[in-house]
C-alpha cells in the first residue's frame, strides 16, 4: 500500500507544472519562427563563353517573433567549383505594383564552390501584401575578362504570412 503524503503530492504537482511550463516554452519557441509559404521562380541560363551558369530566385514569407517577413533569395550555380568572386548575386523583393521593397547589396561567391546565394529580407510587413523576389546575377566571363550581369526570373507572388 502506497501512502501519499501531503508533501509528496505537492512535490508531484510542482514537478508537473514545471514540466508543462518547459514544454510550453519550447513549443512557443518553435512556433514563433515559421515559413508560412515558399516558392521558386523559373531558372534562367547564363552562357558566357566556356561556361554555363544557372540562376533562379526563391521567396519565403511568414511570421517571426510576431513580425511578418518576406525573404527573397537569388541563387546562381554552375557544374564545377569555381574560384572566389566568379559568381555574384543581388537579391531584391518587390510588391504587387513592382515597387522595390528591399534591394540587397552585391555579394560574391567564396573560393571553390559551385553554388552561391544571398538574401534580401523585409521585416515588419503590415497587412498581407503580395510580394515577389527578383534579383540580378553576375558571372565572370574569362574570355573578355569582364562580368556579365543578368536579371533573373521573378518568383510567383506570395501573400501568406500566417
Amino acid at each position, binding site marked *: 500500500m502506497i501512502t501519499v503524503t501531503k508533501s509528496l503530492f505537492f512535490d508531484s504537482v510542482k514537478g508537473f507544472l514545471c514540466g508543462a511550463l518547459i514544454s510550453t516554452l519550447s513549443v512557443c519557441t518553435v512556433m514563433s519562427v515559421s515559413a508560412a509559404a515558399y516558392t521558386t521562380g*523559373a531558372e534562367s*541560363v547564363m552562357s558566357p563563353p566556356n561556361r554555363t551558369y544557372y540562376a533562379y530566385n526563391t521567396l519565403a514569407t511568414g511570421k517571426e517573433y510576431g513580425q511578418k517577413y518576406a525573404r527573397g533569395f537569388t541563387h546562381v550555380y554552375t557544374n564545377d567549383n569555381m574560384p572566389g*568572386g566568379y559568381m555574384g548575386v543581388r537579391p531584391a523583393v518587390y510588391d504587387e505594383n513592382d515597387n*522595390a521593397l528591399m*534591394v540587397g*547589396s552585391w555579394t*560574391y561567391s567564396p573560393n571553390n564552390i559551385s553554388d552561391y546565394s544571398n538574401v534580401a529580407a523585409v521585416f515588419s510587413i503590415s497587412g498581407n501584401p503580395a510580394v515577389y523576389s527578383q534579383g540580378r546575377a553576375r558571372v*565572370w566571363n574569362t574570355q573578355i575578362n569582364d562580368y556579365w550581369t543578368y*536579371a533573373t526570373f521573378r518568383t510567383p507572388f506570395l501573400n501568406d504570412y500566417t
Partner: protein
Amino acid sequence: MKKLTKSAVMALSLLAGFSAVTAAAVLAGSSAVPYETNGQAAPHTGRPNRVNANGQTYGTAGDKLYDEDIPELIAVIGDHGVQGYVTKEDYMDDDGVTCPEEAVAYMEAKARGEIPVKVWTVYEADGITPVDTFTVGNS
C-alpha cells in the same frame, strides 16, 4: 586577273572587318541576355515606362529582364514607407567590382565592416523632389 585579285581582297577585308565588329559587339559590355532553359531568349516584359516633364523615363524594374527596358527612375517604397523613385544609376551600381580578385577583396572588407551602407535618395516622379531614402542591404 588583277581586277579579280583586288575584288577578292576587298571582299575578304570587308568580311573580316564585319566579323571583327560583330564579334566585339557580341562580347563587349557587361549586360547580357537572359535565356530560358529551353534555349529561348527571355521575352521583353513589364509595365510600360512613362516620361516626366524633364524627359526622364520612370517606372518599374522588378518586372523587367533587360537593362535597356529599365527606366531612368525606378519605383521603390522608401525607408519611411513613401513611394517614390530612385535613379537607375544608383539601382545599377555594382560597387565598382570589376574582377574576381576585387570581388574577393570587397567581400573581405565587407566582413570587416569597412563597406559603408548605401542609402539612395527617393524622389518624386519628377526626379528632382526628394521624398524619402532607400537603404540598400540584405535585411
